[in-house]
């Protein structure tokens, strides 16, 4: 059951990444064609970046995308390491290390997304 749970969330995270990374590619690299969230200028121009940073949709999406990417990537790496037929003790150590490392990286990313959102709104407000 544990592996089923882990693997299911790995797949769900993969699907989430596919959709929201796709959105990122459309916003950042098809700005001349689609012009989504670009404030009428280039996707990397200051006005566009500030405009997106003020939107709670992007703040939430960044946090979710970060969580999905970390889980998907670290679970994939864990699977590769486990498939080297490492012993039980190493498996436990890898699990603990990846959980702690993943949570630390997630905390840093969330702090970054939230402060960007707050500063962007304060700058305009």
């Amino acid at each position, binding site marked *: *059951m544990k*592996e*089923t*749970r882990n*693997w*299911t969330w790995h*797949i769900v995270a993969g699907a989430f990444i596919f959709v929201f990374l796709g959105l990122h590619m459309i916003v950042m690299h098809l700005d001349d064609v689609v012009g989504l969230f670009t404030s009428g200028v280039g996707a990397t121009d200051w006005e566009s970046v500030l405009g997106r940073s003020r939107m709670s949709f992007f703040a939430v999406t960044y946090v979710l995308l970060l969580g999905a990417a970390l889980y998907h990537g670290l679970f994939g790496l864990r699977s590769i390491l*486990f*498939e080297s*037929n490492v012993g039980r003790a190493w498996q436990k150590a890898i699990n603990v290390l990846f959980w702690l490392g993943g949570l630390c990286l997630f905390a840093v990313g969330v702090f970054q997304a939230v402060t960007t959102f707050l500063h962007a709104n304060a700058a305009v407000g």
Partner: protein
Amino acid sequence: MSETRILEVVYRVRRFHPEKDEKPYWQEYTIQVEKGATVLDGLHRIRETTDPTLSYRYSCRMGVCGSCGMLISGKPRLACNTQIEEVLIQGNLVTVAPLPNFDVVKDLVPDLAPLFEKHRAVRPHILREGDALDPEPGTEWLQTPQELDRYVQFTYCIRCGLCMVACPTFATDPEYLGPMPLAQAYRYIADSRDGGFETRREIAGTAHGAYRCHYAGECSNVCPKGVDPARAIQLLKREFVLSYLKVIRHRGKASRSEGPIAGAERKAGVPEAPAYTIEQKPLT
């Protein structure tokens, strides 16, 4: 009368006697066989005319029992189901070796005990209510043709082990259940008469179970019966995931037949089934 064509072929056979040889070695035999002869026919010819010490396993000679699996010209095949002409390399050479990924008993005879242990582990029979067997054996369960279609393809497995040999994951992870047991786990999970989903999930839904499959697909390529174990494993994963997400619920949902089934009356001239030779008791 059609003309019988004679082929002269060279068999390069992997030999190993664990009590005499330090390591396996190749031995060549030149034999004459008729067009249409199978690799098993060639092995019979060698043993009857040249070398009676050559050991190999076979039984039915018609691709049903799954006993004569070998590595023939580099690919896992049934010796009885493979014509010599199909597997000639370098002109007239056939190489025959025991199935890899298993220990060798002698020459071309692999020790398939791990295969059957893994098969037994997935409880390859109808379970009712979790881990219990059918409490009333001998009575009928109703099943629609559509319900039968869900798993019937996977019942054609003859447990020959060719899929286990072709699987690159099984080659690197001895604990991996392997394509055959996983396909059989799905075969019973997909059966509407079965109620052992949770029991099999504990065995097959593990890191060395269905999730270890990398979908190389070679198991399906070599299967002599067209069972497609790779597909079964993907369907098994889907069942586990959908059940975890509570999209589907698993429980044996077939019901008992209460009297004769409409349209299934015995035809005239079809004899009754013989009486049981042992006393039938409900399982407790």
